[in-house]
């Protein structure tokens, strides 16, 4: 009997060897272990045996059954593994060296520079204000100590509208409204006024590579009981160092603007040559960047703030100029051109 068992086993192992997929394996399983399978069939021969022999034979068959079951399970795992490996091997190697697809949206460069400036001032507790583009003569001039017939009005080639309003020629036009908005909390609650207001400005002039009739500035004001020239220099230097991400040398020169006293022109050390002198800075080592000064007492008064009690500084930063310097834009007209070839390059810059 055991000879028969041994033969069966040998036949099974041969069959198992040839099976290389699940279907074949399943066929073998049914052939040997199914209800009418070859292993089960072996037991039919038992009826002719003695009880003693039955016992031994039964054990032998059971051992065989277990052995076959295990082998099939083993084989199943092996086939599974082989299938996964085959699947893995079918995956091609990609050419990762092809250029990346960088297509995405873009911000206007003014937005980027404006956001950088806003972030810096927000981190120092400044509110970011917004203001209309069309303002009154009062806001743009009268409230800024520029009465009618003042020569400073000639300096500003202003676009006037038929109703007497005008396109704001500088962001300072928002100063009066800002003071009025915050004066009560300054006076009653002791909250200092700290605000910046970026915005679009207009000058009635012909355009060329360096001149635009539409451009951006960012005004900043700070008013409290003891705001000083020393503070003004600190904030300007800090902002510019943050914007350009390096320690910027600044210098102040007297500058005349009716809405500040004293008034300054702020120069920064040339970004191209670092102060040595080059074509960009006309060999002076300095770039004129930003008019600023201590807010004129009349301007504070017009905003409802007592200049005897409060002082403040104001500055007007040319955002357009800053963006051009920062990104090396040489023709100012590119900024309003709407040209995607130029402007789609400004994807983000934080």
């Amino acid at each position, binding site marked *: 009997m055991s000879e028969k068992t041994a033969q069966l086993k040998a036949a099974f192992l041969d069959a198992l060897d040839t099976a290389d997929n699940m279907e074949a394996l399943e066929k073998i399983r049914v052939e040997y272990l199914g209800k009418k399978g070859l292993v089960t069939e072996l037991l039919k021969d038992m009826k002719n045996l003695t009880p003693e022999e039955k016992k031994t034979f039964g054990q032998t068959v059971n051992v065989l059954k277990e052995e076959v079951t295990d082998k099939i399970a083993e084989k199943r795992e092996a086939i599974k593994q082989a299938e996964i490996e085959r699947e893995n091997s079918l995956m091609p190697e990609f050419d990762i060296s092809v250029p990346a697809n960088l297509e995405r949206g873009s911000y206007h460069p003014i937005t980027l520079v404006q956001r950088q400036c806003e972030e810096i001032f927000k981190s120092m507790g400044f509110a970011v204000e917004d203001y209309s*583009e069309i303002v009154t003569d009062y806001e743009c001039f009268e409230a800024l100590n520029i009465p009618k017939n003042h020569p400073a009005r000639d300096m500003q080639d202003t676009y006037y509208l038929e109703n007497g309003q005008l396109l704001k020629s500088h962001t300072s036009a928002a100063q009066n409204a800002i003071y009025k908005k915050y004066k009560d909390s300054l006076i009653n609650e002791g909250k200092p006024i700290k605000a910046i207001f970026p915005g679009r400005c207009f000058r009635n002039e012909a355009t060329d590579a360096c001149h635009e009739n539409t451009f951006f500035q960012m005004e900043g004001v700070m008013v409290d009981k003891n*705001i*000083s*020239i020393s*503070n003004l220099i600190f904030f300007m230097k800090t902002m510019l160092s943050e914007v350009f991400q390096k320690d910027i040398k600044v210098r102040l020169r007297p500058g005349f603007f009716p809405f500040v006293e004293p008034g300054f022109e702020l120069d920064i050390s040339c970004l191209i040559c670092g102060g040595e002198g080059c074509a960009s800075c006309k060999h002076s080592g300095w770039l004129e960047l930003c008019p600023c000064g201590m807010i004129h007492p009349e301007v504070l008064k017009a905003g409802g703030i007592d200049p005897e009690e409060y002082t403040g500084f104001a500055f007007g930063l040319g955002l357009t100029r800053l963006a051009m310097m920062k990104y090396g834009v040489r023709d100012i007209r590119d900024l309003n051109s709407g040209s*995607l070839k130029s402007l789609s390059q400004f994807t983000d810059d934080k």
Partner: protein
Amino acid sequence: MFLSMNWISDFVDLSGLDKLELINKFSLSTAEVENDIAFRGSDISGIVVAEIKSVENHPDSKKLHLLKVDAGEAELVDVVCGAPNVRVGMKTAFAKVGAKIGEIEIAPRKLAGYLSCGMCCSEKELGISDNNDGIMDICEDVPNGTDLKSIYEIDDIVFEVDNKSLTNRPDLWGHYGIAREFAAISGRELKPLDVVDLGAYNELPKLDLKIEDPLCYRYSCLRFENISKHVSPMNMRIRLYYCGMRALNLLADLTNYLMLEMGQPMHAFDSRKVDKIRIKRFDKPFSFKTLDGAERDIDENTLMICNGDTPVAIAGIMGGLDSEIVDDTSSLTLESATFDASSIRKSTVRLGHRTDASQRYEKSLDPEMTVPAIARFVKLLLDIDSGAVVTSALTDEYAFKYDDIELSFNKAFVDRYTGIDIENDRIVKTLTALGFGVENKASDFKVKVPSWRATKDVTMKADIIEEITRIYGYDNFAVNTAAVPLYPVRAEQEKTDEDRIKDILVKRFSLHELHSYVWAYYDEYKALGIDIEPNVELVNATNPNIKTIRKSIVPTQLCQVKYNTAYAPDFGVFEIGRTVEGLNSDNLCDEHKKLAITLFSKTKGMEELYFELRDMLAVIADDIKHEKLTFEKIEEKSSYKHPKNLNAVYCAGIKLGEIGIANAQVSKKIDKKANIVFAEIDVGEFAKIRNAGIAYEEPSRFPEIEIDLSFVSEKFAPIKAEIDAANCPLIKKVSVVDTYTDENGKSITVRTVFSHPEKTLTRDEVMETVDGIIKNLEAKGIALKG
């Protein structure tokens, strides 16, 4: 304005100091100095006075002469010279062998066959005037061989100050005022002006003078006779030339010199034409010939100097041709006056003619200067021409005097303004150097503003701060942050919304942000067939194409899209900018901040593109406000909007704007094959919408039931309305899973998802609601698809 260091040094001794360093300090303390500082005379050397001893004509040349000159050396020198004015006995400027003029070094060389060992020079060749008519004719009685630089001020440092940086400083329009600044900067003393005592002429008769108009503040005059010299001394001519003026004749040069020295414009009249000086305006316009020969239209606002009723000069701007000094003038009347600054400025603008005099008068000159200027003029004239005679007493009418200005402040005020500690002594010293009268007791200061700063420039305490700090030097400031109380700063909603909209459009939808102009683009609109909507207009734009303010950003954006059609087959652009919706009831512009988006595609269908844009708006509303959008069809005839699919956009009951398709007539002109859609949203209105916040709902742990129903309907909205009307809390989501069109029309398959928080729903439980909805829809003519 050009400034000569030699001239400045007449009034303040700057010897031993680094001049460039001083000029740099001046730039930082007073007014910006332009970068090109000229070292006049530095490029010439070895030029001496030489006398022409003999002149022979060159045998082969009509122009050239063969000279023998005495350059102070043992032997006479042979020189070939082409100048027409050579003569025996003439002293001239001679460049010896080895001398340098610019890049040229003089060496012996053959000219037309003859050896020339040096060169006789014209004033132009030496760079001291523009006279190139002949070689220099030197009158000075000096030995031959004398270095020219030892008799003339050829070496000078000349720097330029931008006139714009002097607009507020009438005192800086002459060298004397500039010298005062250098004195304050260097700590050296300012010398008084050398003048004559005009009191000496008090016995002489006065001139007939009357100011008949308040626009003339002061008029001072004096009469001279017997002037025999006509050419100004070389040094005076060099200074005028270095400062950008041409030497003309002694009297004209003297008035110009005085103007450049003291900032006081002066004018000399022929006394024969001016013996009854009246200053007034005329009732009627007339034409007047100025000394440059131009006929100028004078109106009733222009102040004139007159002889009786005959105008002889435009006050403060230019003299008349008829009263000009001419060759046979023997007696002249010198004017030194002050006029109303804004009147001069306006007249200048009207006449379209700005002169050196008028640009000074525009700055509000100090009336106290008119008489010292005359005293200085007389001093200079008599020094040059001792035969000149003054034939009148000083005649001076002083109609308007500025108030004296006294300012009081204390040290604490200075400290508070500066944020640093500037010592009392330093304050006193600085202000005194600048001409202020200063009284200082303990920490209290009382300051009298000098007349030349009191016409408009220094009027209040803050002005004094500038004087103290600019001389102290801003570079010397200790820099400190401000000590202020801290409070949270709330961001403006509109600004926050604007930033987030930009981020969504750029980061999620890959749109490009552009900027455009706030006015309609005439030519570009025309090219695309877009009408300009009537709106508020600009009245003074220099560019005739800049006139009407835009009502919408979309047309300008369509122009930009046209410009970019070659950029890519698909792109989208957006802008957040301003528009104006006419005037409001206060006659002010109704300004709006709008978001405009335009999508351009050559690959997507119109419907796909339209819905892409619709979904961008929906994401903006959902992301920032957690609100849904609704739409309402608009019927509108427009040159750039397509009549179909134009929808008003609503959010939380607020109308935000519209979404639409570009009119075919416009899109065909942009690109025949492209689809173009646009939307415009009012950012200000959007900012008014409260953020509804995230309404979190715990997901049910029990299975959902999905019911799909197909209805025959053109639109989803009425189906959705009925589902909403059922008001069933179990409905969690309604979506469109399919639309198709067959012979029965359009069908929409709607999936409604039901879920219960605490149990597994059975189909029967939801069918009651579903049946109700179906029944209501059928009542409205929307049937289930069979």
